[in-house]
Every structure is written in structure tokens, then in C-alpha cells.
């Protein structure tokens, strides 16, 4: 137990270090970007109207003060860390003066909802079918599914999404093609709103399932193919244990462990959003927010989203590493 505590503490310190380095890299990259948020705002503000050129410099100065971009780079960096420690990323520069945390808070439920459900569903279905395909190797249906999964897996996500959009949004328009819910439906826990959200999530969800399923399927099938040749499985078969029991208690249970790790990491990635999914389907999640932030040179927003993502992924890996020794007898803490 003491060995485990030592391991857990060391692993936690490692987690903190990874988060610290990750956020610093994000900070350096966002501040090295050639997009100047002040210049971007000035350009947008003066793009259409008749602005006397001599007025622009004072506009720039006002914006720097407004955005808190005055002061030396070191002061700005220290201020950033002071705020990050209390989960405050400051105001968004492209949606000033809205706090970044408000924007992220509004977008996260959409992304976590969609990607969380999609990740768990693809994981369950992919592993289930992959496990069956690996065990019942002669089943034609499962072989057929394997061929389909192998064909779909390398397909670029964007193509799959566009195909679904054309099929279900245009040729046979039965699913909404954009947004998170229907216009003019009040938000809340009413069945009408929930149903509207579910409907709007169906196309993005289907596209994620279509492309994501193959990976889990192929992985699980390979794992099961290896496990079925193990001595204890052969022994169980010779001992007359039923096939279903062998599959569930001996094969799947031992093959699933690496897939659980994969699931945890995938769930961690939920916090970074699915950029392409959200762009293609106009989904109001964190991925769209990140892309908008990048285009507008909005450091605060980009840093906020990447920080959430870094913490999310690192935390998922940490949790897995801490749980693994407790659930897998083959892993020991020496």
C-alpha cells in the first residue's frame, strides 16, 4: 500500500508538470502567432465605415489598454498565471468583455454531450462487435461488418460528414443539418427542447459513429484473436465451459483492458472538441470556439480552451494510471 501511495504521489507530480509545460507551450505559441488581436479588431471596426486614418492610432492605444495588453511580456505572463490558478482566463478579446470562462462554460456542455455520447457509444459497439468478430471468426455477418469497418475506418472524417449531410440533409431531408436545437424553442428541461437537441445531434453523432467505430472494432478483434489462443481459454473450451461464458468471462474481460485505457484518453480529448464535426454541422461547441479564437487572434480564448483540453487529457491519463494497478492483477507497483 505504501508503494502504491508513493507511486500515486509521483504520478500526481508528473501530472502537474505535464500540465504546467503544456500550458506554457500553449502560451508561447499563441503569443507567437502573427495575428495581432488589436489589429484584427481595428481592421474589422474600420472595414466598412469611413474612418479618418488619423483616428486609428488612438483606437489602437485604447484597445491595448482595454484588453490589458499593456505592460512588459513578463508582467503579462505572470498575470496570466495568476489568473489561471483561479480558473480565470480574462476577457475574450474577440467577444470583449465576455469572460472566456463564460464562453467555455456555454460551449462545453454541447461538446461533452455530443462527443461523450459518441465516444462511449462507439467504444461499446466497436468493442462488442470486434470481440464477437474475433471470437466467432467464421460468422459471415461479422466478417461482412469487418469489411465495412475496415473500409470506413481510413475514410477522412470530413468526407463522411459531407456524405451524411448530402444524404440526410438534401437527398432525403429527414435530419436537421445545422445548429444544436431548433430556433425559437425555449431552453430548459422540457421534453420538446430535449427532443430537439437529440434530433440536432443525430447527424454529427452518426458521422462520428461511422468513422470511429472501425478503430475500436479492428483493435478489439486483434486483441481477442490473441487472447483466444491463450492456454486458459483452450483449457476452458476443453473443459466444456459454454462459449458465451468463455467469451464474456475469459476472453472479453482480459482483452478489454487496453481498450479501457484508450477510452479514457478519448474521453479526455472530449474537452478539446471535435473541430471538424462542429464546423461541418454548425454545432455550438468548444471546437467552433477554438477555431473562431484562432482566426481572431484571441489569445485569451485559445489559451482557455487549450488549458481545459490539456488538463482534461492529462487528468484522464492520470486517473487511468492510478486505477490500473488496482484493477489489473498483471500490473504491480514494485
Amino acid at each position, binding site marked *: 500500500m505504501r508503494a502504491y501511495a508513493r507511486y500515486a504521489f509521483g504520478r500526481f507530480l508528473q501530472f502537474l508538470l505535464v500540465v504546467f509545460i503544456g500550458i506554457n507551450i500553449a502560451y508561447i505559441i499563441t503569443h507567437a502567432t502573427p495575428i495581432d488581436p488589436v*489589429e484584427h479588431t481595428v481592421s474589422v471596426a474600420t472595414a466598412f*465605415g469611413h474612418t479618418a486614418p*488619423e483616428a486609428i492610432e488612438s483606437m489602437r492605444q485604447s*484597445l491595448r489598454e482595454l484588453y490589458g495588453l499593456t505592460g512588459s511580456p513578463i508582467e503579462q505572463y505572470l498575470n496570466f498565471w495568476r489568473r489561471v490558478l483561479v480558473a480565470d482566463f480574462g476577457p475574450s478579446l*474577440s467577444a470583449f468583455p465576455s469572460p472566456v470562462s463564460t464562453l467555455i462554460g456555454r460551449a462545453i456542455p454541447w461538446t461533452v454531450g455530443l462527443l461523450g455520447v459518441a465516444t462511449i457509444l462507439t467504444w461499446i459497439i466497436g468493442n462488442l462487435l470486434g470481440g464477437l468478430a474475433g471470437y466467432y471468426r467464421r460468422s459471415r455477418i461479422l466478417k461482412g461488418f469487418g469489411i465495412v469497418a475496415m473500409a470506413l475506418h481510413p475514410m477522412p472524417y470530413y468526407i463522411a460528414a459531407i456524405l451524411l449531410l448530402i444524404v440526410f440533409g438534401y437527398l432525403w431531408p429527414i435530419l436537421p443539418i445545422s445548429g444544436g436545437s431548433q*430556433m425559437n424553442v425555449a431552453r430548459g428541461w422540457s421534453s420538446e427542447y430535449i427532443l430537439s437537441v437529440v434530433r440536432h445531434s443525430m447527424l454529427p453523432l452518426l458521422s462520428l459513429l461511422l468513422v470511429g467505430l472501425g478503430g475500436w472494432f479492428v483493435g478489439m478483434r486483434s486483441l481477442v484473436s490473441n487472447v483466444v489462443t491463450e492456454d486458459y481459454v483452450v483449457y476452458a473450451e476443453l473443459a466444456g465451459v459454454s462459449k458465451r461464458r468463455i467469451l464474456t468471462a475469459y476472453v472479453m474481460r482480459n482483452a478489454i483492458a487496453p481498450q479501457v485505457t484508450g477510452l479514457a484518453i478519448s474521453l479526455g480529448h472530449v474537452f478539446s472538441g471535435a473541430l471538424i464535426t462542429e464546423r461541418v454541422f454548425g454545432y455550438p461547441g468548444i471546437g467552433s470556439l477554438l477555431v473562431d479564437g484562432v482566426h481572431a487572434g484571441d489569445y485569451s480564448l485559445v489559451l482557455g480552451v487549450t488549458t481545459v483540453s490539456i488538463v482534461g487529457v492529462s487528468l484522464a491519463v492520470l486517473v487511468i494510471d492510478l486505477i490500473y494497478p488496482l484493477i489489473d492483477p498483471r500490473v504491480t507497483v514494485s
Partner: protein
Amino acid sequence: MKSAARWLAAGVLAGSTFWGLIQPANAQGIPKDIPRNQLLILENPEGTVKNAAWFNIWAINANSQSNGLQQAALDTLWYIDPNSGIDGVWDNSLASEKPVYNANFTEMRVKLRRGIYWSDGVEFTSADVKFTVDMMVKTPGMRWSAVLANAVETVETPDAETVIFKLKRPNSRFHSLFTVRWNAIWIAPKHIFEKAEDPNKFAFEKPVSLSAYVLHSHDPDGKWYIWQRRSDWQRTSLARFGEPAPRYLAYVDPGPPDKRVIAQMNKELDVVHDIAPEGMFTLARQNPTSKAWFKGFPFGHPDPTLPSAIFNTQLDMFKNKDVRWALTLLVDIKAVSMASYRGAATISPIHVPPTGRHPETYHLAMQDWLADFEIDTGKRKIKPYDRTMARQIADSLRPSMGNQIPSDPKDIAKAFGTGWWKPDPQAATELLERAGFRKQGNQWLKPDGTPFVIRVVVEGDARPIMTRAGSMIAQSWRQFGIDARVDVAAGTLLTRRAAGDFDVILSWSVETWGGHQDLSFFMDSWHSAYVAPPGQSQPSRNWQRWSHPELDKIIEQIRGIDFDDPKGIELGKEFVKLATREMPVIPLMSYNVFTVADETYWTGFPTADNPYANPVPNWGNSRYMFVKIKPKQ
């Protein structure tokens, strides 16, 4: 058996759930509980608005403007339509007459309309105008603070319908700040904003309106905004033209161009703001109710904006006009038109957009001058202008597009423009050699012996038409032996353009009113006083950083005459001649916007045959559509 039954039941349940979810899904793209025949759905090209509940358009980071706020809810003193207007291009909106200046343009007097009310029942008066200006002058960092602080000494309001602006220096174009082209300084409600502690941080979450519509509801995530016609719409300036027909307006983010096409075909988007030419052709072919500006090819609405290949004239290699002209004579405008707009471009050989009232004033009126215009290459004199260029484009399209392509010269001029500069590689060679450049093998070298390299900056996927034009121009130069490279500045174009971080950039530094021949809208900012030194940020719009003593003279003369003075047109022509001789940017074409209106529910949208308003739905003056369209069902 039991297990089979269980599987069957589960399948039936899953199937029926799925079926329930997709019925009636094709109505999901329209607002619930709003009759479709009372609703006009328009695209907001800003996309999804991050700061959805922010309606303070006077703050520097106004966030969203074209979510219906400036088109349906706000108003200001005057409007100029880029086309012909309902009752002439000039509209006295909140003002009851045109601005009246004193003799030396240091004072502007405005008479306001009476009987105009904010949507909360408070009467609009001169106090609102004065408050709007004072608020921005007193609060640095607001959107028009700097402009107004630089220009305005005081604002006086002797009575409820009179406003007198005392200016710090003579300015015959001061009224243009309050004249809508795309936008202008909108009048703020004094009774609301005077309670705001910091006007820059006041969200104005429940906007009161001064125009015919008021906010009904909006998406907290910023994907849609619904505006409802005011019950007292008669107490707004728009009422002079009748009742706005749609009871509701929805400004939506329909997503990328392919989805806009699908949405319009599904009858979920009445007005598309812009799509790629290919999307336009698809709608024209497959959706009979889709109507664009032109009945047939080239379809798009020509904005009074001039996409150009802009030289950075502060670079040594572009300081000599011979070099700029040489590069112009290597451009094949027909190839650029095909590459960018698939032929659906309205070309312009001069530095004025070929739109609105400009063709009659400049393009057509100056045909003879252009035809006689000569360039001395050092070895001979050439007349580079070809007045048949637009006709050649039309002729090349006719075999594939049939009778969609006009054959009447007037219609061709309206749709495709007039002439352009003939490609002349021999003359380009002579001009470059005269400028000290030389060719070694297949590679042109600069006078200092280094390779002649040009980075052509384009915006990438965000602006495919300009990107394709830039790529075609770079290819023409490359074929001639110049090392021209396309440099994609996705997301950084605005910053790089202002910083002068380009050799040539595909953008525009020329924008005009369109409906009025005055060119000061862009030209004033081309004065040498505003040219930033190399390395410093350039204020809009002289991105080419070009200056010329003759141009300064023209600008200063324009500043000293009235907006409507016919002398302005003569000075405009002087500018055209100077810019043609100097070629600081290569003018290409108007910005043709593929705005498409679907006539399933509404008819009477503005078109080239009935150009009473600008149909492009993010422009402030698109509001005139609301009183002219009629319900179809």
C-alpha cells in the same frame, strides 16, 4: 425463442425511436411557432456570434452587427444606396433634409424628422444625436470615439429637431460619418445609455429599436436572431415607404457555403448572403425559385468594392511605375475572370468599381480616353487598352451557357464590364528592361542581380474567389520567368495587410458609395499624410502605401467642395487618369456577391432590372427590401 423475441422487441423499439426522432425533421431549420409565410429568413455572414447577448454596437468590439441589429433595429441620419434606391440613391432617414454646411465647412446643421419613436415609446429627438456623439467623445475606445474626437468641437441642439455640429477643421464630408453605405454611426438611445456606468462594457442586452423591428428572441449560442415588426412601425423612418411586409425576420448562421445551398433548396433560407460560383450555378439549375441579381449569368450583385492586386509600393522593386505596368500587362483578365468567378466577374480597367452609378460616370464616359491612353516602353509607344475584353469573355461563355449570356452591348457592359488591358509580354519585357531588370535564362533578375521574387498573398479558403484570382496572376508572372509564389495568409491577412507584410496582396483598397459618384469614401485615406513608414502599421485603406503630389492636390480640392458639386466628378476623372498612369494597384473587378433570394414565400426582391435596394443582407441599407417584398402565399 425468448431471446429472439427480446431482440425483435428491442429492434422495433430502437427503430420506432429513430423514426420518431426524424419526423418531421425537415422543419427543424425554421423557427418553431412562427408562421412561415410571415417570416423572412436571411443569412448573417458573421456566422455564430460568440457574444450573443451583446447589442452595444457603439462599443469597439461591437461583436455582431449584421445579426439584424443594423438592418432592422437601428437608424441614423442618411442612407446612400449602392444601386438606385427606392426614391433616388440618397435617403433622408432620421434627418428630414440633406446636411447644410456653412461656407467654409466648419459647421454642419441637421434638421431631424419628428414623430419618430424608440420601441419603448420614448420620442427620438436631437438630444439622442448629441448624446451619441458626446458619449463617444467622452469615452475613449468606443467604436467611433477617435473619429468624432478628432472632428467635433461641440454639438448644439437649439431645439428638439435641430442639431448643429461645430467642427474642429473644415470637413465637407463630415456627414458621411452618419450616412449608411454598409454602416454608419448609429444613433444611440440617450434614455438607456445615460444610465450605463461604462458605455464600453454595457451589453445593451434588451435593445430598444429605432427602426421597424424589435428583438423577439435569440439563440444564447448566437446562431440565430429573430426580430418582430413593431406594432407602431408607423412611428419609424421606414414607414415613409409603406409597411414592412415580413412580420418576422430571422438572421441565421446557416453554416458553410454547401449548407447554404442545401438550406435554400429545403426552403429554410430565403436570402443567401454569398456562396461560391459553383453553388450559384447549382441553385440556378436545380431550384427554380432562386433568384439572383442578374436573371442569368453572371448572377451576382456587384458590390461597390474593387478586388485588386495591390503592390507594396514601398518595396524598391515596385517603386517604378514601369515595373507595375509591366506586371499589369502580363495579367490575362479573361483567365482571371474564369479562375475566380468562373467567368461571372464584372471587370474594371480603372481604379473605380464598375457598379452603381460609376459605369456611366467613369467607365463608359472614359472609353475614348482609355482607348487613346499610351505607354512609352522605351522602344515604342503602345495603346494597351482593349475595349472588347468584356465582350470576349461573354463570347467565350456563350457556347456553354447559351442564352443566359447577354448579347446586347449595354447588357454585356452591365454584367461583364467594358474593356481591360491587353496581355503584352513583349511590352512587359521592354518596360522591365528599361527599369533595369534583366532576364538570365528563364529567370528575371532585379537591377541588383538578385532573382525577381514576388510573394502574392491570398486569404485561402476564407475567400476562394480572391485566392483563385491571385493564383492565376502568380501563374501568369511565373510563366514569364518571374519567381512568383502564392503565400496563403489564412486568418492573418488583415494583420499582414496593415503591417505591409506582402509584395503583392489580393484585397481591395478602393471602396465607394456606389450610388453616388463621390470617390472620397476611399480616396481621402490615400493622402500622403496618412502613409505609414515601412515597418509601421498602415491605417486603412491605402494598403499599397502609395503617394503622389498630384493625388494630394486632387484630394485637397475635393475636401473643399460640396458632396454634390459636379466638380467632384471632374476631380474623380483626374484621379482615374493619374491612377491609370501610375498603376499603384492592378484593378480587377467588382466584388460580385452571389446573394440569392428564394421566391417560395416572398417575391419582389431587388434585381438588376429593379435595383431599388442592395439585396446583400448584411448591409444596413438592405432594410429597404422589407417594404418592397410581398408575401407569395
